[in-house]
């Protein structure tokens, strides 16, 4: 690679990535006469299949472009007069967009190399922007977990992927599933999206990420800190955007994957993609099943409950000359079996068996329309349905007879959401870029303890301006304005609608040197009260818990600074150092507080304050045969739960380490993932405290790729993975004070993992 290219690439200035056997990537010698037909031959820098691309031809200064799709050969014919500007936008974010100017004709045509994006040093993100953007160019600090990295963990669900992030703390609940913390803030303050669509179905504030299988995940993008300007409520602590696989142009394949481990999981899933011309389609289906794990076989209750998950979905895609559209649907079903301990009453033995059924059904449409050479419009609409049923049986364990328990023991929760979002903006190629958008969101909740159908509706507009003040300085102010039916000041035109306070943010990025970037941001964010917090009602002789329709949203001020050093020494060596410091000041925290002890009267109220400050240093180095990444997160949190002004604080530390060593001759590799979770502390609104002891988990994974040579399968690939999860064998750790009510049974041990388990995974790509 010519030196000037490397410099241009490393500078990250968006200069064309083009090879034509010339010394300059920008200018080409050509011999064709003006108005004659000429051709471009596109190839990929990594020798792989050419991704679907759009190519635009434009006279310099002209507002309109001529857009064309590129066929599978990569050969493009044009007719035009020189000089010409050619813009190539790969659909696959694994490749970089390219812009070049052809100033002279060239008789043999042009050979254009589409640079594969190096996911290790500077991956691409689509969160918070209209088009794929290298994260080094993004105004906020983004963490991207690539498909390759997800596969290297042999992770079966998204929670297992995220637990290898130092800035995210993943917890497990036997019934409610996984929960997480980001920047010291709980799952209710973290927005979870799938392809930009917010997920529904929070349990105790958390989205259960174990219900998202990884088989259809292309990558996961994490933005720490507030993203409320673009994504609205819940994005106080940060945002996790799970990006699904999309059909690639001119590719057809079928993947079969199976996984077996000692924790009882038996997984099988498949996905296929097909494309022809502008059309592409993909489908996936799978079944993940676990027998569960019983750490104490003398009891009936299992520590890790048996689960059966079914999932399926499909996607239809059309890529036209000036627009592209995706229609997607997916279905998820989970059955969790929860058995109480057996109780002998001396004449027989009885016990409960509870079944928790979760169903998710999602529909979404996403369109990207190239309005002209400068502006795009993205439009996304989605419908999400969530249902969770609890079915409880009383079982005679001697005879096997069982019957449904009382009506109060059964429950069904329905949660539905409609979301529509449109963003109109300019491509990030110029000194001044802008983005205007709207979002309309409606959500309903219905359950045994939330009477009636309660809607929560909001309509928002947002705008951002990205100003490249100098080649090394980029400033992005943004703001969001919202109307909703719940909180804020009443509008003058209707007593049903209220103005929510404006949500502003400002981000700045300084390119201090070729490899060194500094980012700083100040942002305001909010979390609207959930429907449960607004309308919950559970009153019987022992419970007196009320929602509060007067709740106001939680508000947060966030300040973040990130210093980032990304240096690719050559194609095979690179290093990344990143240090992220943050401070969050959350007010109006919504807490379930005991307002009147005499009546045992609990109600959700805006009372608490939370402050978190922390730092996340991260170091990564990669070489041809190995790479290693180490990062840690220290968070200091303070909580004030009443108006006394007194705060309680605690520290938490978490660290992760990953190393990979490759054996090229054997087409195999070994990965090690280790994570240390320091002592966790916290307290309840009553003032009682809890703590959880520190622990370390270690996974070792071996992977091997075998090309199949059997006649009918020639060209197919078989990938093996085997390894040991939790090699240190940690199952339970000590805890203190993890109690919430007078009736809760004390538990001094917290289940962390089913223990040391071996696993094997096979993937066949046909």
């Amino acid at each position: 690679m010519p030196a000037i290219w490397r410099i241009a690439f490393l500078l990250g200035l968006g200069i064309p990535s083009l090879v034509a056997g010339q010394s300059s990537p920008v200018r080409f010698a050509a011999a064709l006469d003006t108005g004659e037909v000429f051709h471009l031959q596109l190839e990929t820098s990594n020798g792989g299949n050419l991704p679907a691309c759009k190519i635009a031809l434009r006279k310099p200064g002209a507002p309109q472009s001529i857009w064309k799709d590129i066929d599978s050969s990569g050969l493009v014919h044009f007719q035009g007069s020189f000089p010409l500007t050619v813009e190539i936008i790969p659909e696959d974010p694994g490749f970089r967009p390219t812009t070049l100017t052809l100033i002279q004709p060239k008789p043999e045509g042009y050979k254009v190399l589409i640079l594969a994006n190096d996911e290790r040093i500077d991956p691409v993100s689509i969160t918070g922007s209209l088009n794929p953007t290298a994260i080094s160019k993004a105004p906020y600090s983004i963490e991207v977990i690539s498909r390759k990295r997800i596969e290297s963990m042999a992770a079966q669900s998204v929670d297992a992927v995220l637990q290898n992030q130092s800035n995210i703390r993943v917890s497990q609940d036997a019934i409610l599933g996984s929960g997480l913390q980001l920047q010291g803030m709980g799952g209710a303050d973290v927005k979870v999206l799938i392809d930009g669509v917010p997920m529904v179905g929070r349990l105790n504030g958390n989205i259960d990420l174990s219900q998202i299988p990884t088989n259809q995940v292309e990558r996961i993008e994490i933005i720490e800190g507030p993203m409320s300007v673009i994504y609205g409520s819940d994005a106080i602590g940060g945002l996790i955007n799970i990006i699904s696989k999309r059909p690639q142009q001119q590719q057809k394949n079928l993947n079969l994957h199976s996984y077996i481990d000692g924790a009882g999981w038996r997984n099988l899933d498949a996905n296929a993609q097909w494309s022809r011309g502008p059309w592409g389609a993909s489908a996936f289906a799978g079944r993940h099943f676990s027998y569960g794990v019983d750490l104490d076989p003398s009891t009936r209750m299992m520590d890790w409950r048996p689960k059966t998950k079914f999932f399926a979905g499909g996607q239809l895609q059309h890529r036209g000359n000036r627009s592209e559209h995706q229609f997607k649907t997916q279905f998820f079903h989970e059955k969790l079996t929860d058995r109480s301990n057996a109780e002998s009453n001396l004449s027989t033995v009885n016990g409960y068996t509870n079944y928790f059924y979760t169903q998710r059904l999602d529909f979404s449409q996403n369109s990207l329309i190239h309005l002209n050479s400068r502006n795009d419009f993205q439009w996304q609409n989605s419908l999400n349905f969530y249902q969770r049923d609890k079915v409880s049986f009383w079982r005679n364990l001697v005879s096997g007879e069982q019957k449904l328990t009382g009506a109060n023991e059964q429950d069904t929760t329905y949660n539905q959401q409609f979301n529509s979002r449109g963003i109109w903006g300019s491509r990030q190629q110029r000194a001044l870029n802008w983005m205007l958008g709207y979002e309309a969101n409606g959500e309903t909740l219905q359950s045994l303890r939330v009477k009636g159908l309660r809607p929560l509706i909001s309509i928002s507009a947002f705008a951002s301006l990205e100003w490249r003040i100098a080649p090394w300085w980029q400033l992005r102010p943004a703001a969001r304005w919202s109307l909703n039916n719940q909180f804020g000041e009443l509008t003058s035109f209707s007593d049903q609608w209220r103005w929510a306070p404006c949500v502003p943010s400002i981000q700045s990025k300084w390119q201090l040197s070729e490899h060194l970037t500094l980012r700083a941001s100040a942002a305001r964010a909010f979390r609207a009260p959930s429907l449960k917090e607004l309308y919950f009602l559970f009153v019987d002789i022992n419970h007196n818990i009320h929602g509060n329709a007067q709740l106001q949203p939680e508000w947060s001020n966030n300040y973040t600074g990130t210093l980032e050093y990304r240096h690719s020494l050559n194609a095979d060596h690179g290093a990344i150092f990143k240090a992220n410091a943050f401070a969050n000041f959350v007010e109006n925290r919504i807490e379930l507080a005991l307002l009147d002890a005499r009546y045992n009267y609990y109600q959700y109220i805006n009372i608490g304050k939370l402050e978190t400050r922390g730092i996340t240093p991260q170091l990564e180095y990669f070489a041809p045969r190995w790479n290693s990444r180490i990062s840690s997160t220290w968070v200091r949190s303070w909580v004030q739960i009443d108006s006394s002004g007194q705060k309680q604080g605690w520290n938490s530390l978490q660290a992760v380490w990953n190393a990979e060593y490759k054996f090229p001759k054997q087409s195999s590799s070994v990965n090690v993932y280790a994570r240390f979770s320091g002592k966790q502390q916290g307290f309840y609104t009553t003032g009682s405290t809890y703590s959880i002891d520190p622990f370390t988990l270690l996974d070792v994974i071996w992977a091997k790729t075998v090309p199949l040579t059997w006649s009918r399968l020639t060209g197919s690939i078989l990938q093996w993975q085997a390894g040991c999860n939790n090699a240190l064998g940690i199952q339970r750790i000590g805890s203190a004070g993890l109690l919430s009510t007078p009736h809760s049974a004390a538990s001094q041990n917290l289940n962390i993992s089913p223990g040391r388990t071996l696993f094997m995974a096979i993937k066949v790509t046909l």
Partner: protein
Amino acid sequence: MKHRFSSSIVLLVLSFSLVFTACEKEEPLYPQPQVPAGLQTQEFAMGENYENQIWFHFGSQSGSTNPFGLWDIAFACSNNPHLMINGGKNQAFSLAQFPGKKFNEVGMSDLTSATWNSDILNGNHDSLAFGQPFLYESPGHFGTKPAVYILDRGEDSLGAERYLKIELTGYRAGVYSFRWGPLNEAQARYATYMRTNEEKNYVYYSFAEHNDVQNEPLRKEAWDIVFTTYKEPVPEPGTGILYPYVLRGVLINSARLEVCELGSPNSFETVDLDIAKKQTYSRKWNEIGYDWKAFDQATNQYTIVPNKFFLIRDESGNYFKLKFVSYYNDQGLKGFPKMAWELLQ
């Protein structure tokens, strides 16, 4: 290469087969429990909504059931006069004292300064919501400390009569006298006499009925324990702060029984008369109490606390061991505690 490829295919087929055939296992049946000789068991039907209370006598192994919640305040039938309130009726049912005040001086404005109390059923009269309101004058005659009491009956549906004010006016020769009326009225609406019954521990009064009501279905010598609903302050784990809570449990007839709670390292199966005789016993009414069961918030179900059992010594000097084995009946309905006990010989 061929061999390696064949191995791969075999493993692949094996792996897929294992995954395809995996499904949830049928739960194996449990053996029928063997009941030791001498062990007695009985289920007590409080009802799924705890509508009943059950009075039980170990000697005759017989009991009696009556509805819970008919009464509001109870008057002791003893030489030591005192009163109880029926705090188990609801979470708010409680009493506030206004010492030194006259009946017409207490009104709705006093609610803001009220300190609400419930009975603590430990047998100590100081721990009752009424405290010790009587002053000894002569045998069988007691005067009262000047005070007015506000009773919160805890139900908004009662309207203005949710809050009542009560003034105790005396205890003479087994007869309590008191007057009461709605809090928003200056003068007393009723002046009432309650005659004690020497066959019962308490006599009971209902403000809704404006009259005495029956609550103890058996003579006081004919019952040992009662399964009922009551309220007492429960310490919040971690802080130890006491919050009043409506509970279902067992109160003892402290005139007849003493109780000792045991757990590890002893076990119900091995404890014998020698061990029982060495223990220290209590006459607290709530010594058996409610916490032999625990409520699991996650599953919304009660479980019996393992290896928690009780020793009982009755007035005849008999020793029993007692444990709870279930809180549900065979239909899976809660509110049907089952108890096992054995006379130690």
